[in-house]
């Protein structure tokens, strides 16, 4: 069977559809399942790069400083991000410690690292060598980054402790709060389609922006 012209398949229900041009902030949805097909292509890499740089600085601060301190009768204990994972590990909860370490430190670090690796060269007009792998990794680890859940956990912990001790928010806490928004903004403004468009024209196929390439050989 041959279907000619630009086509895309819905990721959620696999229906083939012809993309049409979008105006302004419109979103194209699948005619069958209403899943998002595509959004207007924003070629500008300034914004995602700016958010990613901001998020990286905040991430370093959030890790370098204590997030919160607890003062009881003149004694103060502080918790760093790494410290919380480390304590679980030391308290014979190794799997849980690794899970916390992974979701709050490793995944956000990989996300930011991969985005910088992609955006810095692309912004300067060069294509990074490992581009496909980096985008694939970003997609795979995205659900496992839990910065915002950790923040909510922090809030709940502080309420629980509020009754018995004085809680001192640390530099890390403010950085962490800001990091939440910076990471969300960076991830939201990062459109992988722009990356693919800059990477290379799709050989033998039809790309997600609806362009069929001349070189296509079925």
């Amino acid at each position, binding site marked *: 069977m041959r279907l000619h012209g630009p086509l895309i398949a819905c990721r959620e229900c696999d229906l083939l559809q012809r993309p049409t041009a979008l105006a302004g902030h419109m979103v194209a949805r699948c005619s069958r399942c209403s899943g998002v097909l595509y959004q207007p292509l924003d070629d500008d890499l300034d914004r995602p790069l700016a958010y990613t740089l901001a998020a990286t600085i905040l991430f370093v601060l959030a890790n370098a400083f204590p997030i919160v301190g607890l003062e009881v009768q003149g004694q103060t204990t502080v918790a760093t991000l790494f410290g919380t994972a480390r304590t679980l590990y030391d308290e014979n909860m190794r799997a849980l410690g690794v899970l916390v370490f992974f979701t709050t430190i490793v995944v956000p670090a990989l996300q930011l690292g991969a985005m910088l690796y992609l955006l810095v060269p692309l912004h300067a007009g060069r294509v990074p060598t490992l581009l496909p792998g980096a985008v694939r990794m970003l997609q795979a680890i995205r659900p496992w980054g839990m910065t915002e859940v950790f923040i909510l956990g922090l809030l709940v912990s502080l309420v629980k402790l509020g009754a018995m001790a004085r809680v001192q928010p640390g530099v890390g806490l403010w950085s962490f709060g800001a990091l939440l928004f910076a990471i969300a903004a960076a991830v939201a403004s990062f459109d992988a389609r722009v990356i693919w468009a800059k990477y290379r024209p799709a*050989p033998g196929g039809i790309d997600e922006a609806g362009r069929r390439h001349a070189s296509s050989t079925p």
Partner: protein
Amino acid sequence: MRPGDITAAGAGLLSCLTCGLLSQPASHEEDANACPRCGRRLHVRKPHSLLRSWTFLVAAMVLYLPANLLPIMDTESLIMGSHSDTIMSGIVLLWKSGSWGIAIIVFIASIMVPMLKMLAMLVILVAVHQGVSTHCHDLARLYRILEIIGRWSMLDVFVVAILVTLVQLQLLAAITPAKGALAFGAVVVLTMLSTMSFDPRLIWDSAEHARRRPHG
């Protein structure tokens, strides 16, 4: 045949879930195709989607019991004595101490979300096996919600981690993590894996299948 009537699979095309490229399969072997642009391994549908989804789901359901029945942390305190907290007793404590808002948030994230997630995944899987015909839109929407809310159940694991780290004052109190927290963390990870393994395109395949053979 026009687009809008046929799926990529129906047209013999492979759709890449990473970069969105449609391509003709280069080989007829199931595992041999890679996306010509980004190199991702291509499959018509996620491989062994239903089997993997079921396996993770059943494992999560089994662990849901110890996750809720076993204590998630032990507190030893000179003033208040020592006691163990399960997830539910921690919520009750928050509620009694007047932090209603926080108690409700923890209840939703730790009790309701995991339970509803497992139920929803069960409903979707059973529907796909039986051949849905009418509620595809609801099932698709349900799946989208599952993908978004899954991570929030980690809340209590983080709370335990933070409390254990902060409350190490040997004089006043000490909090140590308990087995329930481990089971709970496992439930969250397993339900997330179950959701990720599932291929939402199967909902529509199943409907298509049921429509073509109404009496089969």
